[in-house]
């Protein structure tokens, strides 16, 4: 079963590549079905197998000194993040980032003018950081150095950690969200969102293989999105209102599970009652 990927934008390869590296290091035996698996793109450490980068000059044999185009774009975008609070998610920020790397600001021409790649790069980076954090946490629990958290605490902490990564950029985040919702960005942004939510559930210990798999992810996505929106309008110290909102929403998620069970048992009790009545009458 594969996740349908839209034709990947080249800078997204870098982020996908980064994710794949951290995935390959973290996953258990049988990493075959990572959701980004169907994406092409050479790993920077390996000999080039995939699409050849454009500035390798003659021959094309990629040695370790040569940087692929993806890597370069990746570096520029990372450098550009520093300028986002001032310039927003724009080509100006990218130009400034390029300058700090010693490149001409014309390097910003490599990217779309609406800042899409910058935002997607940032989101992908945040997701990777989150995965690494969750992986670390899991290791500590496995080594017995930390207590396993109850499910609601785990979900709260994971979502909070991920949302806190937005804090330095919170002023310009509404702009970023609206760009992520542009039709040509939706496949990528949706992909990033769903894989992040899937990651959180995986580390939370979700082992469902039935329709629950979908309900849990849908519900958590809702929690994440609404909390994100609340955060954008929150002016309380250190966003306490947002975290309280999050706590309530996660509690709802937990209740939902037990409510579903209650509905089911009530239904079953009803049926049994009816059968009993039918038997008595007949």
């Amino acid at each position, binding site marked *: *079963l594969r*996740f349908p990927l839209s034709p990947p934008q080249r800078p997204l390869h870098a982020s996908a590549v980064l994710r794949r590296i951290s995935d390959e290091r973290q*996953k*258990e*035996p*049988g990493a*075959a*079905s*990572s959701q980004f698996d169907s994406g092409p793109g050479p790993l920077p450490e390996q000999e080039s197998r995939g699409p050849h980068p454009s500035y390798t000059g003659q021959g094309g044999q990629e040695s370790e000194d040569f940087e692929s185009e993806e890597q370069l774009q990746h570096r520029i975008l990372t450098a550009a993040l520093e300028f986002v609070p001032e310039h927003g998610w724009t080509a100006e920020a990218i130009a400034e980032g390029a300058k700090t790397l010693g490149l001409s600001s014309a390097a910003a021409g490599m990217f779309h003018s609406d800042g899409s790649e910058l935002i997607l790069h940032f989101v992908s980076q945040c997701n990777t950081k989150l995965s690494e954090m969750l992986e670390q946490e899991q290791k500590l629990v496995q080594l017995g150095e930390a207590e396993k958290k109850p499910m609601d605490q785990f979900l709260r902490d994971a979502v909070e950690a991920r949302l806190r990564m937005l804090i330095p950029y919170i002023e310009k985040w509404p702009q970023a969200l609206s760009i992520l919702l542009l039709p040509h960005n939706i496949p990528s942004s949706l992909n990033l969102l769903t894989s992040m939510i*899937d990651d959180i559930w*995986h580390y939370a210990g979700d*082992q*469902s*293989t*039935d*329709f629950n*798999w*979908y309900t849990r992810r849908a519900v958590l996505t809702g929690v994440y999105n609404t909390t994100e929106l609340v955060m954008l309008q929150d002016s309380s110290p250190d966003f306490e209102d947002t975290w309280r909102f999050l706590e309530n929403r996660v509690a709802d998620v937990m209740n939902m599970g037990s409510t579903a069970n209650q509905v089911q048992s009530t239904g079953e009790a009803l049926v049994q009652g009816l059968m009993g009545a039918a038997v008595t009458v007949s």
Partner: protein
Amino acid sequence: LLQQMWNQEKEHLKKFNELMVAYRVRPTVLLPLWNVAGFVLGAGSALLGKKGAMACTVAVEESISSHYNTQIRTLMEEDPEKYKELLQVIKKFRDDELEHHDIGLKHDAEEAPVYSVLKKAIQLGCKGAIFLSERI
């Protein structure tokens, strides 16, 4: 006998559920539909009598064995070493299913009412289910 076959199938189900979690695979959205369809098929063919149920078994096991074989081929083409364990699991399950298939035949599946029509219909349904599940 049925109990034995049922136990083996339960074991298959359990193993696949474990594999799904280990490989972090997304379950097909149609799963609830298949649950219902499977139940209806089983109950329906049972209503046709013992031979009907056996005919259903034969049809389904044949479809499943061929599906397993396709999977084995795909995995072998990709990387037999990497998938060694998985291949072993699938091969064992395929052999189990073939055994069920033979048991079905032994118990007069072919004498069931409208055997060939029934078998074709069931196999068509199975193929369709596999096709859709691989995509959605």
